[in-house]
């Protein structure tokens, strides 16, 4: 077989296989991407208990919808190769000596770079936009704050081995063992710890902020549904890390006002004994001898 003939055969075969793979991939996408977005998508956690969890949910759906064509491309290609490019029989035959094609490589690089840049922009916009940090802890000087941050309800979340305590600076600095939040109101969590590292994870609300001693970790959330939510510790903190769970509730503003007023009354004896409200708490004496 002449070299020209071989090359022509090769080029023809390339186009043939390439077209087939492309067609299979397109059909698979046409079928699966809508299923992913509209059938599977709504079931991807987290759900819609807060603006932040809604943002996360949307991001997850978008990422899954983007991942589907990528996944399918690799699966279709490998599946086709395994089915078609196999050696049948015991004889060992070499394939064509193809060592690379700069056009394909450059196209791939450009395409993957474009996708990555788009994702980075999308993620940044999602993070800094209306979700105000998407429920994640932003440290002491948050970048993405809600427009009316001054009016947000301040709640300090104090983690310790192995329970959560919630302190309310706007209500006399009372500490409660339960978290109750008013619906449709901006909430500003200040998460800290008084011993080891914990992580405050209000699952349905889509809030997660590490509780680090000596650090004031701020996270914003706006609950949009009246419901209860799980609070778990998401950073290994010792023996009963798995038991550091409690249940929080989102209630109407009026119910919240009643609850916090009752708490102030019930715990007023304890509140008098507490140290003054501060963003971080150090043990006393807080100066080491040397």
């Amino acid at each position, binding site marked *: 077989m002449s070299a020209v003939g071989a090359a022509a055969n090769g080029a023809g075969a390339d186009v043939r296989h390439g077209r087939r793979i492309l067609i299979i991939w397109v059909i698979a996408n046409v079928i699966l991407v809508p299923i992913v977005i509209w059938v599977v998508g709504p079931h991807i956690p987290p759900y819609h208990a807060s603006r932040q969890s809604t943002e996360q949910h949307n991001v997850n759906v978008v990422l899954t919808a983007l991942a589907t064509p990528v996944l399918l491309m690799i699966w279709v290609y490998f599946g086709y190769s395994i089915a078609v490019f196999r050696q049948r029989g015991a004889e060992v035959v070499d394939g064509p000596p193809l060592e690379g094609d700069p056009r394909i490589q450059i196209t791939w690089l450009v395409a993957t770079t474009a996708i990555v840049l788009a994702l980075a922009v999308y993620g940044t916009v999602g993070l800094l936009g209306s979700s105000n940090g998407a429920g994640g802890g932003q440290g002491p000087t948050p970048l993405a704050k809600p427009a009316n941050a001054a009016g947000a309800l301040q709640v300090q979340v104090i983690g310790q081995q192995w329970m959560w305590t919630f302190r309310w600076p706007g209500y006399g600095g009372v500490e409660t063992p339960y978290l109750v939040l008013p619906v449709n109101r901006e909430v500003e969590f200040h998460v800290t710890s008084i011993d080891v590292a914990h992580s405050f994870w209000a699952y349905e609300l889509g809030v997660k902020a590490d509780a680090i001693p*000596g650090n004031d970790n701020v996270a914003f959330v706006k609950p949009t549904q009246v419901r209860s939510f799980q609070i778990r510790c998401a950073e290994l903190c010792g023996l009963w890390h798995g038991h550091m769970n409690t249940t929080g509730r989102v209630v109407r503003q009026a119910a919240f006002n009643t609850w916090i007023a009752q708490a102030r009354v019930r715990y007023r004896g304890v509140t008098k004994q507490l140290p003054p409200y501060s963003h971080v708490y*150090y043990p006393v004496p807080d100066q*080491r001898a040397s």
Partner: protein
Amino acid sequence: MSASAAPVVPEPEDPRLVAANLVVGARLFASAMAFVFMSFVFAFFYLKAVDSNGMWRPAHVSPPQGYGIAILICILAAAAAFELARRGLASGTGSVSMLALALGLSVAVVVLQLIEYLAGVDFGADGGGYASVFYGWTAMFLAFWLGAVYSVETLLATSMRSAREAQAAGTTIETLRPSADATMVYLYSCAGIAVVTWVLLYLIK
């Protein structure tokens, strides 16, 4: 893999290959060492910036400047003496006396550092962030410096033995030079790190 078969004996090792190995290995080790101390540099600047609870460097915590200067000078002098020794080796003139001087200075560094810990420093390891970095960093440096002492001593001993044997056999010395080059890389790196250590721990604090 039989128990009694002797291995096939190949050609002898090319000394230039060994020399190349030593120099490449020394440079790689110096890079690794640089990253160890980069961690301390990071710790220094990070803890200083955070100044958690105001306890980065309480008022009474201050390093003994005299010891700092003395140790730094000994380190630099040891490196300089070793450089002279290495040049003597390369040019074929004697190197034993310079190597001995380098060894003496290296040991002096160790002694001075230990005395500084026991008698020179007037704050404990629990005296705040700076104190922690001070003790941690200097102790780690001391451990790496002991490696330098070992290298210099080995070269001195090999040099002395080779000098005697060369005089007896009338042959040239072949592998001292690459070992000296490798040790020079190590010493220069230690010296560079020592300068950074002194600037951060004793000057900037």
